[in-house]
């Protein structure tokens, strides 16, 4: 018998998150096959691949929405595989979604979304809400300040707090979702195609935001199609294709990797691209 957590720390010590041989299939269709990679603390790791490569499935496995058929996800050496999504969030992992998922029921405002993002800090209960009104009021003020701070951080006007999220332009809704994820003060962010639907100027702004998040010491796993953004911000890249890991490395290694070019552009382009690179 050996201590699993200790063993993993020894093996994957420098990695904050370690994805270990994840396999997941949906009624016979293999979405992920033996995918393994790690993310170092404080790094931005990009997860790229053609549509249907299994990127979102992998994010869902990491955040506990899906459970893998085989394999494990370790975070700080702790096995997350059997934990439920809210327990994984409590470990310090926040995420955003490919299609923005903001809370809009009962006329919820932008500020409400942010307050809900602070759930892990508030830990509301009905007993507290009814009998500890003083504490609630105090917490409320503190969290509200944090909410305005996060709004400013992602580049939204504090005045936006009182509007309905669906009244915000699409790009701002994405920013709001990130601000909401940041409300939990996570150690790591999982971002699912955060730049899709943004125009060039917005992508440029978004790049600055990502680097500012990294500056705060937050580790990021970035699923993204916009290669320019990926190349500009990522410390390492891992490439998925048909559920398998195709390549892993830094930006230069990936951009001239034969298999990656083949997967993206087709085998006809391999020689052309290779020649261009050497030339």
């Amino acid at each position, binding site marked *: 018998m050996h201590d699993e957590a200790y063993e993993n720390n020894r093996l994957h010590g420098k990695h904050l998150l370690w994805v270990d041989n994840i396999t997941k299939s949906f009624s016979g269709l293999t979405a992920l096959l033996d995918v393994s990679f790690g993310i170092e603390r404080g790094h931005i790791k990009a997860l790229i691949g053609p549509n249907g490569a299994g990127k979102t499935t992998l994010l869902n496995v990491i955040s506990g929405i899906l459970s893998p058929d085989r394999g494990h996800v370790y975070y700080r050496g702790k096995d997350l595989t059997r934990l439920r*999504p809210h327990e994984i969030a409590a470990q310090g992992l926040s995420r955003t979604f490919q299609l923005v998922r903001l809370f809009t029921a009962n006329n919820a405002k932008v500020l409400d979304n942010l*307050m809900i993002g602070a759930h892990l800090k508030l830990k509301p209960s009905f007993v507290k809400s009814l009998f500890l009104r003083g504490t609630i009021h105090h917490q409320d003020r503190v969290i509200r300040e944090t909410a305005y701070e996060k709004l400013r951080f992602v580049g939204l006007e504090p005045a936006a707090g009182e509007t309905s999220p669906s009244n915000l332009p699409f790009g701002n809704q994405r920013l709001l979702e990130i601000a909401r994820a940041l409300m939990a003060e996570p150690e790591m962010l999982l971002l699912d195609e955060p730049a899709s639907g943004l125009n060039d100027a917005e992508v440029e702004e978004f790049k600055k935001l990502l680097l500012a998040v990294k500056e705060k010491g937050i580790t990021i796993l970035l699923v993204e199609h916009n290669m320019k953004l990926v190349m500009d911000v990522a410390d390492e890249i891992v490439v998925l294709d048909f559920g398998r890991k195709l390549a892993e490395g830094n930006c230069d290694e990936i951009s001239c990797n034969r298999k990656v070019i083949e997967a993206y552009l087709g085998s006809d382009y391999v020689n052309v691209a290779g020649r261009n690179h050497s030339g």
Partner: protein
Amino acid sequence: MKVKRNLGWLALLLFIALFPATVGRISPYYNTVLILVGIYVILAVSLDLLIGFAGQISVGHAAFFALGAYTSGILTAKHSISPSIALLSGLFVSGLVAWGIGRAVLRLKGYYLAMATLGLNAVIVKLITGFASITGGASGLLHIPPFQIFSLTLQDHTYYYYFVWGIVILVITCCLALTKSPFGSTLIAIHSDEEAASTLGIDCPKYKLHVFVISSMLAGVAGSLFAHFMGFIAPDDFDILTSILILVMLFLGGVGTIYGAALGAAFLKLLPEVTYGFHDYELFLHGLILILVLIFMPEGLLGILTNVKNRLLGSKVLSNPPSLGTDS
């Protein structure tokens, strides 16, 4: 603006407080009507927590109404236990049953949850009818004593009126406090998107269970108040039609606002007093008014009131997007 709004509420409270001394004195019958209104306000408001805030549709609220009523009724009528303790027992039993059943049933979503709660209602009514030796069966439970606080018997409907409305105001205040607190925001998150909520650290099953238990306990209190008021209860009082009536009150008044539920309950309980005079056409008129409200006022009665108020006060109607909520 704020003063004006508070004045409205003060006027309403004053009306409720002075009712037995004015209208109720001339015609005591209306005291009894308003007691029933109060009981249904508690039912509709408690259901609003579950449906309007947490987004969990229940078509079996009358089951917990029944549990409260029968627990209180049996304890006082057959075992001579003090009504105050019986009321608390009713609250406890409703909550306990909700806790046990909720753990299983709340895994279901949408229509399936609605069907399951509908089934629960049917089962509870059948059980009450079946265990006739304890519950009096289909012919009902007789001789439930009026409510008593220590040695003060609230046989006089005027006293009971104040007791019931005191509880109604307490329930509404607590529900408003809950929904405006982070607990309420958590429910709204679950209502909007359970999966997204869970990735923010919200334990959805736990919160759904908690709100289900709270909502059921309040229905239990309403049941107990009902039993001691009527003195006689029968399974028919708590069948599926009652659940649907509470649901209609909620949607008629405006869902997800607490005030709306209270308004809907009052409206639907007072409507027969108006249509009563039309004798044969009563049911027809009743139905017609309901249909008109639901078709032309999808935001419910509260939506209309809010619009009218905004227009009267000259505030920018446009700045209030169409919503179920009261303006903030």
